[in-house]
């Protein structure tokens, strides 16, 4: 690697050149070192592999990946063996003379077209059988509807009548903010922990019906071999059958806006007996909302029990409304009610609808606004909606002074 060109500023002198040559050599050595170091198995403490599979499909994927990887590495070594051989053998500095007639050979071209083709077929065969197995979601033992929200999940157990929300449990104090360091120490499950995990029985085929309420999300748990977009307005299915009890973690895989990175998934697989016990408990903890038995909002506001006919005071409603607001509305409209122009979320503070006649606001709360990201919240109970309406009418700069009673909501639902 001696510089053969006499360029104008070679005046920088031999010393500079020699330093550079040394630096170059060092760099190339360092390069090999880096590559070497990165592939050291001694680094097993760092994650370098697909998480241990917990379903048959995930194991197939795991093995398939290794199979492909090994084939590729073998080809790579062969091909670049030839390249490095040329680099060392056919150097001009070693007196190599170019064989200018060696530049065309139909036979060789055919060989290196056909061989890769055959290798590809050998890769495609196991992949095909895995795809067919993966796609067969028939005869499930259990069906769960999964709905992505900005930013959390809802799980609706079709047979067991259980429905609940599952969202990030890591406190923001562990995350910190630009310029504001985190005030709490980060736990081992930082950003991977949820308030209510999805619970499933071991050894049962669980079919997921995945959709979304707003934008695209991705229900992604590597150990279960599932990664499926939730597409608003469409149901797409996927399935898994966990083989051993345990806790499996994943995250939302498709960008869904601001808190996309804060939308973890936890699946807890329990023995069928434990699962049944969990169902029993869950039935009371989060029953599916019906006209007579209201749902419980994502954040536990269990204290908010409606007694039919009860007239609530402004303070009671406002207090309850605050937590409902922060669980359901603040992601878009912000805690300070100022809205978020980036998301086209209108400001509620000073909004003519919020501060206008009750009926207008209730209609939007129930039905949403078509063609916007404001969906209807009719899944919330009468008292919850009444509370959040009252809260927004009487917070920040809004001073309407009236209350919205559960009865108002009830009559508007019809």
């Amino acid at each position, binding site marked *: 690697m001696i510089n053969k060109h006499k360029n104008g500023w070679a005046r920088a002198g031999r010393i500079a050149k020699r330093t550079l040559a040394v630096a170059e050599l060092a760099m190339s050595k360092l390069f090999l070192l880096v590559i070497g170091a990165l592939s050291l198995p001694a680094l097993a403490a760092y*994650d370098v592999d697909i998480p241990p599979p917990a379903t048959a499909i995930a194991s197939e994927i795991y093995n398939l990946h290794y199979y492909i990887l090994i084939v590729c590495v073998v080809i790579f070594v062969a091909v670049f063996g030839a390249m490095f051989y040329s680099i060392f053998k056919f150097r001009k500095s070693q007196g*190599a003379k170019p064989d200018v007639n060696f530049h065309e050979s139909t036979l060789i071209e055919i060989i290196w077209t056909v061989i890769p083709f055959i290798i590809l077929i050998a890769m495609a065969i196991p992949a095909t059988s895995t795809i067919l197995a993966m796609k067969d979601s028939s005869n499930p033992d259990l069906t769960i509807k999964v709905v992505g929200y900005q930013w959390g999940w809802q799980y609706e157990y079709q047979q067991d009548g259980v429905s609940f929300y599952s969202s990030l449990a890591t406190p923001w104090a562990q995350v910190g903010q630009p310029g504001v360091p985190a005030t709490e120490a980060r736990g081992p499950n930082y950003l991977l922990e949820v308030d209510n995990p999805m619970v499933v029985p071991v050894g049962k085929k669980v079919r997921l019906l995945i959709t979304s309420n707003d934008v695209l999300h991705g229900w992604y748990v590597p150990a279960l071999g599932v990664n499926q977009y939730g597409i608003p307005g469409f149901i797409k299915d996927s399935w898994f059958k966990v083989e051993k009890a345990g806790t499996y973690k994943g995250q939302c895989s498709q960008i869904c806006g601001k808190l996309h990175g804060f939308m973890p998934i936890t699946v807890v697989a329990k023995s069928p007996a434990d699962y049944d016990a969990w169902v029993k408990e869950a039935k009371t903890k989060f029953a599916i909302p019906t006209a007579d038995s209201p749902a419980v909002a994502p954040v536990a506001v269990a204290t908010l029990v409606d007694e039919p006919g009860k007239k609530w005071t402004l303070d009671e409603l406002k207090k309850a409304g605050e937590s409902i607001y922060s669980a359901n509305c603040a992601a878009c409209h912000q805690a300070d009610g100022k809205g978020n122009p980036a998301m086209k979320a209108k400001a509620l503070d000073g909004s003519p609808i919020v501060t206008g006649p009750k009926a207008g606001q209730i209609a939007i709360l129930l039905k949403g606004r078509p063609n916007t990201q404001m969906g209807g919240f009719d899944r919330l109970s009468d008292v919850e909606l009444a509370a959040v309406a009252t809260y927004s009418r009487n917070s920040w700069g809004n001073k309407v002074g009236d209350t919205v009673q559960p009865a108002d909501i009830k009559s508007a639902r019809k």
Partner: protein
Amino acid sequence: MSATTHPADHAADHHDHKPYGLSRWLFTTNHKDIGTMYLLFGLLMAIVGGFLSLGIRAELFMPGLQILQPETFNSFMTLHGLIMVFGAVMPVFVGFANWLIPMQIGAADMAFPRMNNWSFWLLPPAAILLAGSFFVEGGAIQSGWTLYPPLFTQSGISGDMTILAVHILGASSIMGSINIVTTVLNLRAPGMTLMKLPLFVWTWLITAYLLIAVMPVLAGAVTMLLTDRHFGTSFFNAAGGGDPTMFMHIFWFFGHPEVYIIILPAFGIVSQIIPAFSRKPLFGYASMVYATSSIAILSFIVWGHHMFTVGMPAAGQLFFMYATMLIAVPTGVKVFNWIATMWRGSLTFETPMLWALGFLFMFTMGGFTGLVLAITPVDITLHNSYYVVAHFHYTMVAGASFAIFGGVYFWWPKWTGKMYNESFGKLHFWWTTIGFNLTFFPQHFLGLAGMPRRIPDYALQFAEWNMISSIGAFFLAAGQIFFMITLWLSYKSGAPAKDRQWEGADSLEWTHLPSPVPYHTFETVPVLK
């Protein structure tokens, strides 16, 4: 050779016609001026895009949120992708095309010099719209460069700025490509048959064809986004019978050919460099042309591999998997031909050759990870993870950008008439190679372990590799400052370059033109035997 004979009245006309000052650049119809503007514009955008990538890597240096709000992070990530692809790499390759195609086919200029200038001057308005979107209410778009609705539909004003920027960029690319296709098909010197074209010209001919075919499709897709946002249509809204998945299909029908638009000119550059430093003709010229064409044709039927997780039927997954895997065959042919070119050659390792070899080695790694992703079941577990990020940086940075660097060093003497410092060039190569691998190799591990892409903060198990990756990124970026210094020094005080600086280079610009190339080339058309 430039001793051309002209009637006297014309001669004066020709040689005094080099305009000066700002208007030279604003109104120019000279392919070299326009090429230079493209290259400089691309460099500027690479700096902007590189700055954004450093923002990303700085935030990801350790767990927690330190410097960017999540929404700002998303804007950085999105604009990094858009700017690098549409603002940096594509324009740089068009710059190469402008400089080289007329010289390599023996033409005096591009077929439509005025339109050529328009293609360039459409870029700055588009860039202003994109970059300006950071400063409007709500900030730049946050949907990722793929612009998927409904998230994209939620964007503020920046959404419209982006859509219109894409329209303008599309117009620019289409006009530029029509110009290139016409020039290659119609302005070749007598005797320059299609099968004698230098491979760079061939790859650009095919690239231009791809651009003309898919840029309008992208324009159609963003037009539908626009009407969904403002005029109440329901293309991507299930409530009205549309489907967000439809956008993905249309986008990737554009998007996959787009990635070959980025890599084919790189293949072309490498196909010029390797024979030059092997002192031996390119191995399997004809099969290279056929392989490139096959890649282009196959690229239209593989788009579904970006969508294995949308819930498409098994038949769709199988079709797209097989079709995608097939692309490994022609790409393999190219890789083998390059290596066979070196075989029994007489090799030297000047800077351009180092870049070409780095390209060969690392692009192939990126190709192999592409193949891993093409295996549908494996993609299920790797989709939208950092493995994908590693894959496409191996193809687009170690692939496309390495070829760009190699090409710049290769043709710099021809363009400027000055030599650069070889040691500096080589140092830049090793610096970039190490920085690059340090940045992106660990991302394979992150992806395998399940770290999703497009997140501003991550679980603790991903901390070590992210830190290494971020250190690598800053090291890598610093190397590019060294690159600019190297070129600047050469520009100011480099040794004069020879007309045929590389003894093994045999295309027309080396054999028929002096270094630097005069403002007007080939005023008499060269005739080839």
